[in-house]
Protein backbone atom coordinates (compact mmCIF):
# COMPACT_ATOMS: atom_id res chain seq x y z
CA UNK A 1 0.00 0.00 0.00
CA UNK A 2 1.19 3.49 -0.91
CA UNK A 3 -0.23 6.76 0.31
CA UNK A 4 0.26 8.41 -3.08
CA UNK A 5 0.69 5.70 -5.66
CA UNK A 6 0.89 8.08 -8.62
CA UNK A 7 3.87 9.92 -7.18
CA UNK A 8 5.55 7.10 -5.29
CA UNK A 9 5.41 4.59 -8.11
CA UNK A 10 5.87 6.75 -11.20
CA UNK A 11 8.28 5.45 -13.81
CA UNK A 12 11.89 6.56 -13.51
CA UNK A 13 11.63 8.48 -16.80
CA UNK A 14 8.55 10.35 -15.66
CA UNK A 15 10.15 10.99 -12.31
CA UNK A 16 13.27 12.44 -13.90
CA UNK A 17 11.40 14.83 -16.12
CA UNK A 18 9.25 15.84 -13.15
CA UNK A 19 12.41 16.43 -11.11
CA UNK A 20 13.99 18.54 -13.82
CA UNK A 21 10.95 20.76 -14.12
CA UNK A 22 10.83 21.29 -10.35
CA UNK A 23 14.58 21.82 -10.13
CA UNK A 24 14.45 24.56 -12.75
CA UNK A 25 11.70 26.32 -10.80
CA UNK A 26 13.66 26.03 -7.59
CA UNK A 27 16.91 27.38 -9.05
CA UNK A 28 15.04 30.24 -10.57
CA UNK A 29 13.41 31.10 -7.27
CA UNK A 30 16.50 30.94 -5.11
CA UNK A 31 18.52 32.93 -7.65
CA UNK A 32 16.04 35.74 -7.54
CA UNK A 33 14.99 35.58 -3.89
CA UNK A 34 18.02 34.50 -1.86
CA UNK A 35 21.02 36.79 -1.86
CA UNK A 36 23.54 34.16 -0.76
CA UNK A 37 22.54 31.68 -3.50
CA UNK A 38 22.70 34.40 -6.15
CA UNK A 39 26.10 35.50 -4.93
CA UNK A 40 27.51 31.96 -4.91
CA UNK A 41 26.19 31.28 -8.39
CA UNK A 42 27.55 34.53 -9.70
CA UNK A 43 30.95 33.71 -8.27
CA UNK A 44 30.88 30.60 -10.42
CA UNK A 45 29.49 32.47 -13.38
CA UNK A 46 26.28 30.47 -13.45
CA UNK A 47 22.80 31.74 -14.19
CA UNK A 48 19.57 29.68 -13.85
CA UNK A 49 19.41 29.28 -17.65
CA UNK A 50 22.62 27.21 -17.51
CA UNK A 51 20.71 24.38 -15.87
CA UNK A 52 19.49 22.38 -18.83
CA UNK A 53 19.38 18.86 -17.45
CA UNK A 54 19.37 17.06 -14.12
CA UNK A 55 23.08 16.42 -14.56
CA UNK A 56 23.67 20.18 -14.59
CA UNK A 57 22.81 20.15 -10.91
CA UNK A 58 26.50 19.34 -10.43
CA UNK A 59 27.41 22.82 -11.70
CA UNK A 60 25.81 24.39 -8.65
CA UNK A 61 27.72 25.16 -5.45
CA UNK A 62 27.12 23.18 -2.27
CA UNK A 63 25.24 24.54 0.72
CA UNK A 64 26.46 23.81 4.24
CA UNK A 65 25.22 24.26 7.78
CA UNK A 66 27.67 27.13 8.01
CA UNK A 67 25.75 28.96 5.25
CA UNK A 68 22.62 28.68 7.37
CA UNK A 69 24.51 29.95 10.41
CA UNK A 70 25.97 32.87 8.48
CA UNK A 71 22.50 33.85 7.36
CA UNK A 72 20.87 33.43 10.76
CA UNK A 73 17.99 33.72 11.22
CA UNK A 74 16.02 34.68 8.09
CA UNK A 75 18.40 35.46 5.26
CA UNK A 76 18.18 32.12 3.49
CA UNK A 77 14.38 32.20 3.36
CA UNK A 78 13.11 32.42 -0.20
CA UNK A 79 9.77 34.04 0.64
CA UNK A 80 8.77 37.17 2.58
CA UNK A 81 8.13 36.54 6.28
CA UNK A 82 4.38 37.01 5.83
CA UNK A 83 4.34 33.74 3.89
CA UNK A 84 5.99 31.82 6.76
CA UNK A 85 3.60 30.11 9.14
CA UNK A 86 5.99 28.00 11.23
CA UNK A 87 9.54 28.08 12.56
CA UNK A 88 11.54 25.12 13.82
CA UNK A 89 15.08 25.17 15.13
CA UNK A 90 17.74 22.55 15.60
CA UNK A 91 19.68 22.62 18.80
CA UNK A 92 23.06 24.17 18.16
CA UNK A 93 25.68 22.47 20.29
CA UNK A 94 27.73 25.62 19.95
CA UNK A 95 26.28 29.08 19.58
CA UNK A 96 23.11 29.85 17.67
CA UNK A 97 20.65 27.18 16.56
CA UNK A 98 19.77 26.67 12.92
CA UNK A 99 16.40 28.24 12.19
CA UNK A 100 14.14 26.87 9.46
CA UNK A 101 10.86 28.31 8.15
CA UNK A 102 7.83 26.75 6.46
CA UNK A 103 5.08 28.20 4.30
CA UNK A 104 1.57 26.81 4.43
CA UNK A 105 2.37 24.72 1.36
CA UNK A 106 5.59 23.42 2.98
CA UNK A 107 3.66 22.27 6.03
CA UNK A 108 1.14 20.52 3.77
CA UNK A 109 3.94 18.84 1.79
CA UNK A 110 5.66 17.73 4.95
CA UNK A 111 2.39 16.21 6.17
CA UNK A 112 2.16 14.38 2.82
CA UNK A 113 5.65 12.94 3.37
CA UNK A 114 4.88 11.74 6.88
CA UNK A 115 1.57 10.27 5.69
CA UNK A 116 3.61 8.26 3.17
CA UNK A 117 5.95 7.06 5.93
CA UNK A 118 3.09 6.04 8.20
CA UNK A 119 1.49 4.18 5.29
CA UNK A 120 4.80 2.34 4.81
CA UNK A 121 4.36 1.13 8.39
CA UNK A 122 0.83 -0.10 7.59
CA UNK A 123 -0.89 3.02 8.92
CA UNK A 124 -4.54 3.61 7.93
CA UNK A 125 -7.35 5.94 8.94
CA UNK A 126 -8.37 3.65 11.77
CA UNK A 127 -4.82 3.19 13.12
CA UNK A 128 -4.00 4.61 16.52
CA UNK A 129 -0.71 6.50 16.11
CA UNK A 130 1.18 7.49 19.23
CA UNK A 131 3.67 10.30 18.72
CA UNK A 132 6.35 10.22 21.37
CA UNK A 133 8.75 12.56 19.61
CA UNK A 134 9.20 15.81 21.47
CA UNK A 135 6.78 18.59 20.49
CA UNK A 136 8.25 22.06 20.15
CA UNK A 137 11.09 23.59 18.21
CA UNK A 138 12.31 20.08 17.36
CA UNK A 139 10.78 18.91 14.07
CA UNK A 140 9.90 15.39 15.27
CA UNK A 141 6.70 15.93 17.25
CA UNK A 142 4.81 18.49 15.15
CA UNK A 143 6.12 17.04 11.89
CA UNK A 144 4.64 13.65 12.70
CA UNK A 145 1.53 15.19 14.17
CA UNK A 146 0.44 16.93 10.97
CA UNK A 147 1.32 13.89 8.89
CA UNK A 148 -0.67 11.53 11.09
CA UNK A 149 -3.65 13.90 10.94
CA UNK A 150 -3.35 14.04 7.16
CA UNK A 151 -3.45 10.27 7.10
CA UNK A 152 -6.63 10.57 9.17
CA UNK A 153 -5.27 8.32 11.88
CA UNK A 154 -6.25 8.45 15.54
CA UNK A 155 -3.46 10.70 16.77
CA UNK A 156 -2.21 10.40 20.34
CA UNK A 157 0.21 13.30 20.91
CA UNK A 158 2.00 12.05 24.01
CA UNK A 159 5.31 13.79 23.20
CA UNK A 160 8.31 12.49 25.18
CA UNK A 161 8.53 11.68 28.88
CA UNK A 162 6.33 10.17 31.60
CA UNK A 163 6.96 6.76 30.15
CA UNK A 164 4.72 4.78 32.49
CA UNK A 165 1.73 6.86 31.50
CA UNK A 166 2.72 6.44 27.83
CA UNK A 167 2.74 2.69 28.28
CA UNK A 168 -0.63 2.74 30.03
CA UNK A 169 -2.17 4.78 27.18
CA UNK A 170 -0.46 2.57 24.62
CA UNK A 171 -2.16 -0.44 26.15
CA UNK A 172 -5.58 1.11 26.80
CA UNK A 173 -5.88 2.99 23.51
CA UNK A 174 -4.49 0.02 21.53
CA UNK A 175 -1.74 1.98 19.80
CA UNK A 176 -0.69 0.36 16.52
CA UNK A 177 2.04 2.69 15.35
CA UNK A 178 4.62 4.21 17.63
CA UNK A 179 6.70 7.14 16.41
CA UNK A 180 9.71 8.12 18.50
CA UNK A 181 13.49 7.97 18.66
CA UNK A 182 14.91 4.43 18.81
CA UNK A 183 16.46 5.14 22.19
CA UNK A 184 13.11 6.24 23.57
CA UNK A 185 11.53 3.10 22.10
CA UNK A 186 14.10 1.11 24.07
CA UNK A 187 13.18 3.05 27.19
CA UNK A 188 9.51 2.17 26.56
CA UNK A 189 10.50 -1.50 26.16
CA UNK A 190 12.33 -1.42 29.50
CA UNK A 191 9.38 0.25 31.19
CA UNK A 192 7.11 -2.50 29.84
CA UNK A 193 9.33 -5.04 31.54
CA UNK A 194 9.32 -3.06 34.79
CA UNK A 195 5.54 -2.83 34.71
CA UNK A 196 5.25 -6.53 33.99
CA UNK A 197 3.42 -5.97 30.71
CA UNK A 198 4.10 -8.38 27.86
CA UNK A 199 4.18 -6.99 24.35
CA UNK A 200 1.46 -9.52 23.46
CA UNK A 201 -0.90 -7.44 25.62
CA UNK A 202 -0.31 -4.47 23.32
CA UNK A 203 -1.45 -3.88 19.75
CA UNK A 204 1.77 -2.44 18.33
CA UNK A 205 2.33 -3.22 14.65
CA UNK A 206 5.03 -0.81 13.55
CA UNK A 207 7.50 1.65 14.97
CA UNK A 208 8.76 4.58 12.92
CA UNK A 209 12.02 5.35 14.61
CA UNK A 210 14.44 8.11 13.69
CA UNK A 211 16.23 11.35 14.56
CA UNK A 212 19.36 9.43 15.57
CA UNK A 213 21.38 6.61 14.01
CA UNK A 214 20.63 3.10 15.23
CA UNK A 215 22.01 -0.32 14.43
CA UNK A 216 20.42 -3.45 13.01
CA UNK A 217 21.08 -5.06 16.37
CA UNK A 218 18.95 -2.46 18.05
CA UNK A 219 16.28 -3.15 15.44
CA UNK A 220 16.23 -6.82 16.43
CA UNK A 221 16.01 -5.91 20.08
CA UNK A 222 13.16 -3.43 19.55
CA UNK A 223 11.24 -5.80 17.31
CA UNK A 224 11.41 -8.67 19.78
CA UNK A 225 10.75 -6.58 22.88
CA UNK A 226 7.89 -4.54 21.45
CA UNK A 227 6.48 -7.09 19.01
CA UNK A 228 6.47 -4.70 16.08
CA UNK A 229 8.19 -4.02 12.78
CA UNK A 230 10.81 -1.33 13.40
CA UNK A 231 11.26 1.04 10.47
CA UNK A 232 13.93 3.69 10.09
CA UNK A 233 12.92 7.21 9.13
CA UNK A 234 15.44 9.82 8.03
CA UNK A 235 15.30 13.55 7.89
CA UNK A 236 16.94 16.74 8.96
CA UNK A 237 15.41 20.08 9.79
CA UNK A 238 17.54 21.95 7.23
CA UNK A 239 15.86 19.90 4.50
CA UNK A 240 12.36 19.64 6.04
CA UNK A 241 12.52 17.43 9.14
CA UNK A 242 11.63 13.74 9.44
CA UNK A 243 10.15 12.27 6.28
CA UNK A 244 12.96 12.82 3.79
CA UNK A 245 13.32 9.05 3.51
CA UNK A 246 11.74 6.05 5.20
CA UNK A 247 11.97 2.27 5.14
CA UNK A 248 9.18 0.24 3.60
CA UNK A 249 8.26 -3.18 5.02
CA UNK A 250 11.10 -4.73 3.00
CA UNK A 251 13.58 -3.06 5.38
CA UNK A 252 16.17 -2.95 2.62
CA UNK A 253 17.05 0.72 2.70
CA UNK A 254 15.06 3.91 3.04
CA UNK A 255 13.08 5.23 0.06
CA UNK A 256 14.04 8.85 -0.44
CA UNK A 257 11.05 10.80 -1.75
CA UNK A 258 12.52 11.87 -5.03
CA UNK A 259 9.56 13.96 -6.10
CA UNK A 260 10.61 16.34 -3.31
CA UNK A 261 14.33 15.76 -2.96
CA UNK A 262 17.18 15.03 -5.35
CA UNK A 263 19.84 12.95 -3.60
CA UNK A 264 23.51 12.77 -4.54
CA UNK A 265 26.36 10.86 -2.92
CA UNK A 266 29.74 12.58 -2.93
CA UNK A 267 33.19 11.81 -1.63
CA UNK A 268 33.28 13.84 1.57
CA UNK A 269 36.87 14.92 0.95
CA UNK A 270 37.08 15.57 -2.79
CA UNK A 271 33.37 16.44 -3.12
CA UNK A 272 33.30 14.42 -6.35
CA UNK A 273 30.06 12.53 -7.10
CA UNK A 274 30.22 8.79 -6.34
CA UNK A 275 28.55 6.05 -8.38
CA UNK A 276 25.52 4.05 -7.23
CA UNK A 277 26.30 1.73 -4.33
CA UNK A 278 29.40 3.54 -3.10
CA UNK A 279 29.39 5.03 0.35
CA UNK A 280 29.85 8.72 0.81
CA UNK A 281 28.18 11.88 2.02
CA UNK A 282 24.51 12.40 1.24
CA UNK A 283 23.77 15.69 -0.52
CA UNK A 284 20.16 16.83 -0.93
CA UNK A 285 18.49 19.40 -3.14
CA UNK A 286 14.88 20.28 -2.31
CA UNK A 287 12.72 20.76 -5.39
CA UNK A 288 9.35 21.48 -3.84
CA UNK A 289 10.00 23.77 -0.95
CA UNK A 290 9.08 27.44 -0.62
CA UNK A 291 10.23 28.74 2.76
CA UNK A 292 13.77 27.44 2.89
CA UNK A 293 14.81 25.64 -0.27
CA UNK A 294 18.29 24.12 -0.11
CA UNK A 295 20.55 23.50 -3.08
CA UNK A 296 23.03 20.62 -2.79
CA UNK A 297 22.89 20.65 0.98
CA UNK A 298 25.76 18.66 2.53
CA UNK A 299 24.07 16.58 5.20
CA UNK A 300 27.33 15.14 6.65
CA UNK A 301 25.47 11.85 6.85
CA UNK A 302 27.14 8.82 5.32
CA UNK A 303 25.20 6.36 3.22
CA UNK A 304 25.01 4.83 -0.24
CA UNK A 305 22.21 4.93 -2.78
CA UNK A 306 20.49 2.24 -4.81
CA UNK A 307 18.16 2.67 -7.77
CA UNK A 308 17.31 -1.02 -7.88
CA UNK A 309 13.71 -2.07 -8.14
CA UNK A 310 12.03 -2.57 -4.74
CA UNK A 311 9.43 -5.33 -4.30
CA UNK A 312 7.10 -2.84 -2.55
CA UNK A 313 6.42 -1.17 -5.90
CA UNK A 314 7.83 2.24 -5.05
CA UNK A 315 10.21 3.54 -7.70
CA UNK A 316 12.02 6.05 -5.52
CA UNK A 317 15.68 5.31 -4.84
CA UNK A 318 16.74 3.86 -1.52
CA UNK A 319 19.51 5.01 0.76
CA UNK A 320 21.30 2.56 3.01
CA UNK A 321 20.60 2.77 6.75
CA UNK A 322 22.71 5.70 7.88
CA UNK A 323 26.25 4.69 8.83
CA UNK A 324 27.51 7.72 10.66
CA UNK A 325 28.61 11.30 10.20
CA UNK A 326 31.39 12.56 7.98
CA UNK A 327 32.86 14.24 11.06
CA UNK A 328 33.56 10.80 12.52
CA UNK A 329 35.10 9.32 9.40
CA UNK A 330 38.64 7.97 9.55
CA UNK A 331 40.73 7.03 6.58
CA UNK A 332 42.85 3.98 7.37
CA UNK A 333 45.15 2.79 4.61
CA UNK A 334 42.83 4.42 2.11
CA UNK A 335 39.71 2.76 3.50
CA UNK A 336 36.91 4.92 4.90
CA UNK A 337 36.12 3.75 8.41
CA UNK A 338 33.34 4.86 10.71
CA UNK A 339 33.26 4.18 14.44
CA UNK A 340 29.72 2.90 13.95
CA UNK A 341 31.10 0.10 11.77
CA UNK A 342 33.46 -0.95 14.54
CA UNK A 343 30.53 -0.86 16.90
CA UNK A 344 28.42 -3.15 14.75
CA UNK A 345 31.39 -5.50 14.30
CA UNK A 346 31.68 -5.70 18.09
CA UNK A 347 27.98 -6.38 18.38
CA UNK A 348 28.26 -9.19 15.87
CA UNK A 349 31.10 -10.59 17.98
CA UNK A 350 28.74 -10.76 20.94
CA UNK A 351 28.99 -7.55 22.91
CA UNK A 352 25.58 -5.90 23.18
CA UNK A 353 26.77 -2.57 24.53
CA UNK A 354 30.36 -2.24 23.48
CA UNK A 355 32.64 0.34 25.00
CA UNK A 356 35.63 0.75 22.79
CA UNK A 357 38.37 3.12 21.81
CA UNK A 358 39.94 3.27 18.38
CA UNK A 359 43.58 4.30 18.36
CA UNK A 360 44.98 5.21 14.98
CA UNK A 361 48.67 5.72 14.47
CA UNK A 362 51.20 5.76 11.69
CA UNK A 363 54.33 3.67 11.86
CA UNK A 364 56.82 3.51 8.98
CA UNK A 365 54.35 5.36 6.79
CA UNK A 366 51.71 2.72 7.40
CA UNK A 367 48.48 3.41 9.21
CA UNK A 368 47.79 1.13 12.12
CA UNK A 369 44.61 0.74 14.05
CA UNK A 370 44.17 -0.68 17.48
CA UNK A 371 40.79 -1.19 19.11
CA UNK A 372 40.60 -1.32 22.88
CA UNK A 373 37.51 -3.18 24.00
CA UNK A 374 36.25 -3.13 27.54
CA UNK A 375 35.59 -6.64 28.76
CA UNK A 376 31.93 -6.65 29.75
CA UNK A 377 30.37 -9.28 31.99
CA UNK A 378 29.00 -10.74 28.80
CA UNK A 379 32.41 -11.12 27.13
CA UNK A 380 34.28 -12.31 30.19
CA UNK A 381 35.09 -15.98 30.42
CA UNK A 382 37.03 -17.82 33.07
CA UNK A 383 39.46 -19.34 30.59
CA UNK A 384 42.34 -17.72 28.75
CA UNK A 385 41.51 -19.80 25.70
CA UNK A 386 37.96 -18.44 25.60
CA UNK A 387 39.09 -14.86 26.04
CA UNK A 388 41.61 -15.29 23.23
CA UNK A 389 38.74 -16.66 21.19
CA UNK A 390 36.69 -13.54 21.94
CA UNK A 391 39.61 -11.41 20.79
CA UNK A 392 40.03 -13.39 17.57
CA UNK A 393 36.30 -13.21 16.92
CA UNK A 394 36.38 -9.43 17.25
CA UNK A 395 39.37 -9.19 14.91
CA UNK A 396 37.72 -11.32 12.27
CA UNK A 397 34.40 -9.52 12.66
CA UNK A 398 36.14 -6.18 12.06
CA UNK A 399 37.99 -7.69 9.11
CA UNK A 400 34.71 -8.87 7.61
CA UNK A 401 33.13 -5.45 8.06
CA UNK A 402 36.01 -3.22 7.00
CA UNK A 403 38.41 -5.43 5.11
CA UNK A 404 41.32 -4.33 7.24
CA UNK A 405 43.29 -6.08 9.92
CA UNK A 406 43.38 -4.40 13.29
CA UNK A 407 44.88 -5.21 16.63
CA UNK A 408 42.38 -5.78 19.41
CA UNK A 409 43.21 -5.40 23.05
CA UNK A 410 40.88 -6.40 25.86
CA UNK A 411 40.83 -3.93 28.73
CA UNK A 412 39.05 -3.64 32.05
CA UNK A 413 35.64 -1.95 32.15
CA UNK A 414 35.50 1.77 32.79
CA UNK A 415 39.09 2.28 31.78
CA UNK A 416 38.05 4.06 28.59
CA UNK A 417 37.42 7.69 29.32
CA UNK A 418 33.81 8.82 29.12
CA UNK A 419 32.47 12.23 28.34
CA UNK A 420 28.86 12.81 29.39
CA UNK A 421 28.20 9.10 29.67
CA UNK A 422 29.41 8.42 26.14
CA UNK A 423 32.79 6.89 25.57
CA UNK A 424 35.38 8.76 23.62
CA UNK A 425 35.58 6.69 20.45
CA UNK A 426 38.70 7.71 18.58
CA UNK A 427 42.23 8.87 19.25
CA UNK A 428 43.99 9.74 16.03
CA UNK A 429 47.65 10.07 16.87
CA UNK A 430 48.46 10.87 13.25
CA UNK A 431 47.10 14.37 13.76
CA UNK A 432 48.98 15.03 16.98
Amino acid sequence: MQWNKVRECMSRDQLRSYQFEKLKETIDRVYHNVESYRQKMQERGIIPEDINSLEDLKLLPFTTKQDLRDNYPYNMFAVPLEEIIRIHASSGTTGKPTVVGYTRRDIANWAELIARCLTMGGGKRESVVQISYGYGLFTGGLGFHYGAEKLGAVVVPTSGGNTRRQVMLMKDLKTEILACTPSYALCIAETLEEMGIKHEELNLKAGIFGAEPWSDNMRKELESKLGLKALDIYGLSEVIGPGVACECMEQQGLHIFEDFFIPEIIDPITEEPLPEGERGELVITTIDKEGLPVIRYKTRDITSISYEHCPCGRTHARIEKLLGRTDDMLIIRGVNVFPSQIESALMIAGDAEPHYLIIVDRKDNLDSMEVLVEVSEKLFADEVRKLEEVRRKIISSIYTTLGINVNVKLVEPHTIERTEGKSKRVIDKRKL
Partner: protein
Amino acid sequence: MFVKQISVFLENKPGKLSQVTDILEKNDIDISAISIADTTEFGILRMIVNKPEEAVAAIKAEKFPVSTTEVLAVEVADKPGGLNLALQTLNEAGVSIEYLYSFIKRNGKRALILFRVEDPEKAVEVLQSAGIKLYTTEEINSL
Protein backbone atom coordinates in the same frame (compact mmCIF):
# COMPACT_ATOMS: atom_id res chain seq x y z
CA MET B 1 29.90 -31.28 45.93
CA PHE B 2 31.05 -28.22 44.04
CA VAL B 3 32.97 -25.26 45.30
CA LYS B 4 32.39 -21.76 43.97
CA GLN B 5 35.43 -20.23 42.32
CA ILE B 6 35.64 -16.52 41.58
CA SER B 7 37.39 -15.36 38.42
CA VAL B 8 38.39 -11.75 37.82
CA PHE B 9 39.63 -10.17 34.61
CA LEU B 10 42.80 -8.14 35.14
CA GLU B 11 44.88 -6.13 32.75
CA ASN B 12 48.56 -6.89 32.93
CA LYS B 13 49.52 -3.73 34.73
CA PRO B 14 51.39 -3.17 37.97
CA GLY B 15 49.21 -2.92 41.05
CA LYS B 16 46.15 -4.59 39.53
CA LEU B 17 46.33 -7.69 41.69
CA SER B 18 46.68 -5.73 44.90
CA GLN B 19 43.60 -3.70 43.98
CA VAL B 20 41.59 -6.91 44.22
CA THR B 21 43.27 -8.21 47.37
CA ASP B 22 42.61 -4.77 48.90
CA ILE B 23 38.91 -5.11 48.19
CA LEU B 24 38.90 -8.55 49.83
CA GLU B 25 40.77 -7.35 52.88
CA LYS B 26 38.40 -4.41 53.36
CA ASN B 27 35.50 -6.84 53.31
CA ASP B 28 37.20 -9.26 55.67
CA ILE B 29 37.24 -12.05 53.10
CA ASP B 30 39.64 -14.95 53.48
CA ILE B 31 41.35 -16.58 50.48
CA SER B 32 41.93 -20.32 50.60
CA ALA B 33 43.22 -20.85 47.07
CA ILE B 34 44.58 -18.46 44.45
CA SER B 35 46.06 -18.66 40.97
CA ILE B 36 46.64 -16.43 37.99
CA ALA B 37 46.50 -17.44 34.36
CA ASP B 38 48.06 -14.77 32.22
CA THR B 39 48.96 -13.73 28.72
CA THR B 40 51.11 -10.76 27.73
CA GLU B 41 48.10 -8.47 27.83
CA PHE B 42 45.69 -9.71 30.42
CA GLY B 43 45.29 -12.21 33.20
CA ILE B 44 42.55 -14.13 34.93
CA LEU B 45 42.73 -14.19 38.68
CA ARG B 46 41.06 -17.26 40.17
CA MET B 47 40.26 -17.68 43.84
CA ILE B 48 38.38 -19.71 46.39
CA VAL B 49 37.21 -17.53 49.27
CA ASN B 50 35.17 -18.07 52.41
CA LYS B 51 32.35 -15.70 51.40
CA PRO B 52 32.01 -15.98 47.60
CA GLU B 53 28.75 -13.98 47.21
CA GLU B 54 30.08 -11.06 49.23
CA ALA B 55 33.38 -11.17 47.38
CA VAL B 56 31.67 -11.08 43.98
CA ALA B 57 29.48 -8.14 45.02
CA ALA B 58 32.45 -6.21 46.38
CA ILE B 59 34.62 -6.82 43.32
CA LYS B 60 31.76 -6.00 40.97
CA ALA B 61 31.19 -2.75 42.82
CA GLU B 62 34.74 -1.78 41.87
CA LYS B 63 33.92 -2.46 38.20
CA PHE B 64 36.07 -5.52 37.63
CA PRO B 65 34.53 -8.15 35.37
CA VAL B 66 33.94 -11.13 37.59
CA SER B 67 32.35 -14.52 37.11
CA THR B 68 31.86 -17.61 39.21
CA THR B 69 32.59 -21.17 38.21
CA GLU B 70 31.81 -24.48 39.90
CA VAL B 71 35.01 -26.36 40.60
CA LEU B 72 36.03 -29.45 42.57
CA ALA B 73 38.13 -29.38 45.74
CA VAL B 74 39.87 -32.76 45.68
CA GLU B 75 41.74 -34.25 48.62
CA VAL B 76 45.01 -36.00 47.77
CA ALA B 77 47.43 -37.72 50.06
CA ASP B 78 50.61 -35.69 50.50
CA LYS B 79 52.94 -38.42 49.22
CA PRO B 80 54.25 -39.60 45.82
CA GLY B 81 51.35 -40.74 43.65
CA GLY B 82 48.77 -38.81 45.65
CA LEU B 83 47.76 -36.51 42.82
CA ASN B 84 48.30 -39.21 40.23
CA LEU B 85 45.42 -41.31 41.56
CA ALA B 86 42.93 -38.50 40.99
CA LEU B 87 44.34 -37.74 37.54
CA GLN B 88 44.30 -41.40 36.50
CA THR B 89 40.72 -41.79 37.65
CA LEU B 90 39.57 -38.82 35.59
CA ASN B 91 41.64 -39.87 32.61
CA GLU B 92 40.21 -43.37 32.59
CA ALA B 93 36.69 -41.95 32.72
CA GLY B 94 37.53 -39.67 29.78
CA VAL B 95 36.96 -36.46 31.76
CA SER B 96 39.36 -33.80 30.57
CA ILE B 97 40.80 -31.14 32.86
CA GLU B 98 40.70 -27.47 31.95
CA TYR B 99 43.11 -26.47 34.72
CA LEU B 100 44.07 -27.20 38.30
CA TYR B 101 45.92 -25.50 41.15
CA SER B 102 46.49 -26.16 44.79
CA PHE B 103 44.92 -24.73 47.92
CA ILE B 104 46.89 -22.70 50.42
CA LYS B 105 44.99 -24.52 53.16
CA ARG B 106 45.63 -28.17 53.94
CA ASN B 107 43.90 -30.77 56.02
CA GLY B 108 46.67 -32.12 58.21
CA LYS B 109 48.75 -34.53 56.13
CA ARG B 110 46.44 -34.22 53.18
CA ALA B 111 46.69 -31.62 50.43
CA LEU B 112 43.78 -30.03 48.59
CA ILE B 113 43.82 -29.60 44.83
CA LEU B 114 41.30 -27.57 42.87
CA PHE B 115 40.08 -29.08 39.60
CA ARG B 116 38.17 -27.43 36.82
CA VAL B 117 36.91 -30.18 34.51
CA GLU B 118 34.81 -30.35 31.41
CA ASP B 119 32.15 -32.65 32.83
CA PRO B 120 31.83 -31.86 36.56
CA GLU B 121 28.95 -34.28 37.30
CA LYS B 122 30.79 -37.22 35.85
CA ALA B 123 34.01 -36.22 37.61
CA VAL B 124 32.24 -36.20 40.99
CA GLU B 125 30.83 -39.63 40.31
CA VAL B 126 34.09 -41.30 39.28
CA LEU B 127 36.23 -39.61 41.95
CA GLN B 128 33.83 -40.55 44.72
CA SER B 129 33.51 -44.15 43.56
CA ALA B 130 37.33 -44.33 43.56
CA GLY B 131 37.14 -43.36 47.25
CA ILE B 132 38.55 -39.86 46.73
CA LYS B 133 37.19 -37.22 49.07
CA LEU B 134 35.68 -33.99 47.69
CA TYR B 135 35.28 -30.98 49.97
CA THR B 136 32.32 -28.61 50.25
CA THR B 137 32.71 -24.86 50.85
CA GLU B 138 31.74 -25.37 54.52
CA GLU B 139 34.39 -28.04 54.99
CA ILE B 140 37.06 -25.82 53.48
CA ASN B 141 35.99 -22.88 55.61
CA SER B 142 36.22 -24.99 58.77
CA LEU B 143 39.82 -26.09 58.09
